Each structure stands twice: as C-alpha cells, then as structure tokens.
C-alpha cells in the first residue's frame, strides 16, 4: 500500500476506473453491443437483434470464418513443429551456430507483416516457385509470421528445463530418440501447447500480410471484416469480430485444457 489516507486512495481508484474503462473495457463492450444492435443513434442501441449473427454465420462471412480456422490450425501446427524442432536442434548444436540460429529465428519479428507480404508477393510471383494467387501463399505467410514466436516460447522453456533429467535418462542407457520422446518432449509439452495457443490467436487476427496475399477463394475473416467495414456494414463487421474472438478463445481454452491434463500426468 503506497497511499495511507482513504480519501486519496478512493480518488486514485476513481481515476483508474475511468482510464481502465476507456482503454480496456469500452472497446470490447462497444463491439459486443454493436454486434446485436438493430439501430444505433443515441447512447445505447435502439433495438437488439440477433440477425447480424445469423448473417455472419451464413454465406461469405461463414466461408471466411472457415478459411480462418483452417489457416490458423494448419499454420500454427506447422510453425509449432518447425519452431520446436529448431529450438531442440539448436540446443545440441555448437555454441556459435546456436547463437546464429537464435538470431536468425528471431529476425522475422522485426519485419512488419505488410513487408513480409510484399516480399512473398515479389518472390513467389515468378519461377521457380510461382504459387502467388493460391491459398498456399497465405498459409506460408502465416507460418513465417508465427515461427519466431513458436521458436522463442519453446527455446525459453528449454532454457528453464533441468538438464539432469535428460542426462539421467541417457546415463541409464536410453537412446537419444527415446530421451527425446519420453523425457524432453513430455517436459516441454506445456510450453509447446502455450506456443500453439499464441500462434492460433495471432494467426486468427493476422491482417497485414493477409491483405497483401489473399486470393479471392481464400479470404480470412479479418480481411472480410475489413471489406465489410469499408462498405459501411459495421454491424455485420462487429458480429463477425465477436465471432472471431469467440472461436479464437475457444481454441485457446481447448489447448489450455490439454495443457492442464499434460501437467497432471
């Protein structure tokens, strides 16, 4: 407790409440309200309706939601796999190589997603790999954006891991593959699953690279939400955003449950 008098504390809390509401609560509340608003001219929506959600769950936006989910799941899986692989392999590499790889795998963080999108457009619109205009370029873009975060989450967990565990298993005669499968990966499982939730959340909300890359038949939900906003259909856009958040949250919760189970074992 920094402040001792009751009056100063209450005053401080009042200021806090106003600022916190404006910064964290109001935006969320607005989106949720707008997603069920029939019309909105005053302080509160004039009528409540579920029709925006019904429309968001049909036709184009629903197709986009499905694209987003597929993209999110595939890109997260691939990035977690590659990131975990790189983090595990770099640990047994010579120290100079390890440092170089560590820097290399962190670099994509410093590249804005729009620039990554542009780079992929430039590189993959020409031979030898001309897959611009297909869904694969979106998936690859997402993987490249997620990869540094998957790598960094898992490699931080490896740094915290007790090396004695793996050493004990190896000294008892377990082969490196067996040590990996029976000791290291189980110990790392919670952080691998944490990196998967992070990757899923990031992929579902990704906008910069996707706007540069998406072909007409593979438009993710954030890109569709932008198109809706651009056409002035803000209520439908809000309903789609709420849907996007709900699906993301559900995915993260499911991964969290899996994590809890793994920790219990």
């Amino acid at each position: 407790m920094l402040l001792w008098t009751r009056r100063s504390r209450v005053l401080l809390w009042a200021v806090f409440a106003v600022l916190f509401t404006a910064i964290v609560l109001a935006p969320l509340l607005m989106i949720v309200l707008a997603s069920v608003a029939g019309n909105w001219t005053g302080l509160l929506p004039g009528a409540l309706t579920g029709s925006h959600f019904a429309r968001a769950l049909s036709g184009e936006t629903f197709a986009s939601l499905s694209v987003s989910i597929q993209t999110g799941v595939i890109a997260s899986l691939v990035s977690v796999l590659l990131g975990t692989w790189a983090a595990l392999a770099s640990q047994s590499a010579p120290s100079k190589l390890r440092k170089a790889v560590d820097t290399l795998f962190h670099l994509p963080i410093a590249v804005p997603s729009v620039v990554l999108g542009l780079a992929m457009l430039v590189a993959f619109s020409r031979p030898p790999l001309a897959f611009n205009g297909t869904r694969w370029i979106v998936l690859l873009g997402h993987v490249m954006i997620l990869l540094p975060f998957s790598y960094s989450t898992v490699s931080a967990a490896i740094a915290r891991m007790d090396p004695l565990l793996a050493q004990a298993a190896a000294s008892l005669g377990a082969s490196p593959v067996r040590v990996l499968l029976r000791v290291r990966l189980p110990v790392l499982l919670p952080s691998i699953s944490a990196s998967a939730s992070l990757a899923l959340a990031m992929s579902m909300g990704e906008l910069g690279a996707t706007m540069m890359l998406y072909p007409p038949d593979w438009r993710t939900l954030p890109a569709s939400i932008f198109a809706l906003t651009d056409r002035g259909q803000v209520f439908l856009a809000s309903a789609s955003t709420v849907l996007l958040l709900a699906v993301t949250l559900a995915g993260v919760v499911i991964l969290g449950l899996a994590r809890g189970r793994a920790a219990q074992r």
Partner: protein
Amino acid sequence: MTGLALTAVAAPARRREKRPGHGWLLLPPVLVLLGFFGYPLVLVVLQSLESKTGEFGLSVWLDVLGSAEFRDAAWKTVALALGATAGCVVLGTFLALVIAFVPFPGARTLSRLVDTVLAFPSFLIALAFTFIYGSAGILGAGGFLYSPFGILLAEITFYTPFVMRPALAAFGQVSSAQMEVAASLGAKPGRVLRQVILPEALPSLASGACLTMLLAMNEFGIVLFLGAKDVTTLPMLVYGKGIVTFDFPQACVIAVVNVVFSLALYGTYRRLTKGGQRAAVDQA
C-alpha cells in the same frame, strides 16, 4: 507481432551442458526459414534497385526518397510511434502502479483481463472507435477519428496493455520491506515512487516502451480500418504501392526503409531485455 509481449517473459539464466554437436539436425527448419523468409527479403532489396526500364541502379530510391509522399509518411510514422509510446508509457505505468501498490478487490482479475486483451487483433480497437468517436458515434466527435489524433488515440488504447504487462511484472518484484522502510523514515508516497519503485522498474519499462514503439511503427490494422485520408504511414504506403497501384519497385524501397527502422528498434529492444535480465540476476 502481438506475441512479442506474451513471449517476452524473462528467461532465467541457462545452465549449459556440454554435448557433441549435431548441427545438421538444424538444416530442415533453417532451410524453410531461408527459403520462405530470407529469399523473399533479398528479392525485395534487389527489386528496389531495379528501375522501370529494367536497369540496375538507385533511380527508384532517389525517386522515392525525394517524393513528398514518402517524406510525409516517414515523418507521420515516426511521430505517431513516438506519441503513442509516450502515451502508453504514462498511462500503462499509472494503471500498473494502481494495480500493484494500491490494490482493490478484483485487481487480479483485471490484470488477467489485460493479458487477454494482448492477444486481440488491433483492428478491433479501430472498429470499436467508429462506434465511440466516429461521426455517428455516441460521443458525436465528428471528424476527430479520421485525423492523426484519432489514430494516435487508437494506438495508445491498443498498446497501453503492452506496457502494463512488463510494468506489472517489474512492480511485483519491488520488495515491500524496502518501500515500508522508506515510508517509515518519512518519505512521502511521491518520493517512494521516484526513489524506490521507479528506479527498480526502469529496465522493464524501457524495454516495454521500446517494444511498443516497434509495434506502433509497424501498425497496419488500425490505420487501414480508420482509413484517414491524410494519414499515411510507411506500412500503409507499402500496401498502397504494392496492392493498389502495383508499383513493386517503389513499394520495395519503402519496405526496405521500414525494415531498417524496425531492425534498429528491435536491436535496441533485444539489448534492453538482455540488460534487464542481467540486472535481475545480479541482484539475486
């Protein structure tokens, strides 16, 4: 990008074991990264050096760097990022201070809510702002939202939690005994704050500020969604040149400039987080 704040939890000192090298195992992931990240970036640099007639040289660079459009965008990008960072540091530090040192029932839940907000896409804020501050919004603020200040406010709103999180972590490590000793010796709250709390939290606050600046500079969703006519930032310019007018060489020049800015900030961020970790270890 948002993931940076979530993965930026300080890792404790490593205990290293000596084992024979198996560098070749790294080959598959490194090849993927080089092929789908390194190779495209190299092509961007090459493309930026290629003029419309196909000659190799700096002509596109000179064109772009001399254009008022680019200079205006570069200036707006830096100014917005600086402004947003300053706003976030002030607000985020204040909010974290209250949660950490003048707690109230439910403060923990709020700090968990902050963690959740970090994972949200930034366009959510822009969309919400159209309902609050837009021309038909509840505050009826008219054109404010589509001015640079609207974007600034949206960025501050979105990025404040990115400062709050490291600030909360740092404030949690300030020993309450130290604060109580200072207070019992007669230091007023303001002095305890200035001489005990803030010096200890400074490295975390600095790296949080650096991260916010990096993210705000590369912000795309907010600027795109608000669609302010006279506010173009570097990422928006890259998007406009690349997708709207298909002028790839110019887009590449702007992209390279953007990456250089961003790498400089990221380098500073990495150095700050490492320094912060070392300081924490030294004190332990």
